[in-house]
């Protein structure tokens, strides 16, 4: 069964450093997402991406964050200058339907980001 994959599974970085989290969505999916879950809190939406541009972003997704689909298979989340409060599990998801809304989002296993 096709699945979303994410690398690395765990990333440790120093505050102020840049990190890039990588995702390979399901191959025929067209809508891509990043969510995060801070320990003990809800899963929170960060950004959605379709047709090589951001469809929607949350208040969390400020200028420190960016997303990119550098080739036909990868989808990346970059945090330019990490802060302690960026420590969280980051989940990538993808869905098939271009409208995105009523189509199921399938999640990857997550990347645990630890900022020291």
């Amino acid at each position: 069964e096709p699945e979303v994959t994410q690398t690395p599974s765990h990333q440790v970085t120093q505050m102020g450093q840049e990190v890039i989290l990588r995702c390979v969505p399901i191959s025929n999916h067209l809508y891509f997402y990043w969510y995060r879950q801070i320990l003990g809190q809800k899963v929170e939406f960060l950004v959605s991406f379709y047709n090589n541009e951001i469809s929607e972003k949350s208040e969390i997704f400020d200028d420190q964050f960016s997303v990119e689909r550098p080739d036909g298979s990868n989808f990346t989340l970059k945090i330019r200058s990490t802060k302690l409060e960026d420590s969280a599990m980051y989940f990538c998801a993808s869905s098939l339907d271009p409208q995105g809304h009523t189509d199921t989002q399938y999640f990857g296993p997550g990347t645990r980001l630890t900022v020291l």
Partner: protein
Amino acid sequence: DQQVKQNSPSLSVQEGRISILNCDYTNSMFDYFLWYKKYPAEGPTFLISISSIKDKNEDGRFTVFLNKSAKHLSLHIVPSQPGDSAVYFCAASAQQNQGGKLIFGQGTELSVKP
């Protein structure tokens, strides 16, 4: 952001019995609802969904009920199995959010005891 609430942080059920997980929402614009299951150190796994034009959707042992007037949905698992032990999240989205943003509840940890 309390638009989606799961008021029970945990639930314990005997194997073979029914598990009922509840979810309430406040945003009347939500029109699509999903349940995800999550094991530790894994991503959420899709279980079942329901559109607001329906009040029930069934898939094997899993049934989701939607009561729009009460802004309430529930997930029934019957019979419950030990492998169902996990954290269950309900999530909602609104057609107005063309980006497909999902709003998640806090999760309910289900423990099914043999």
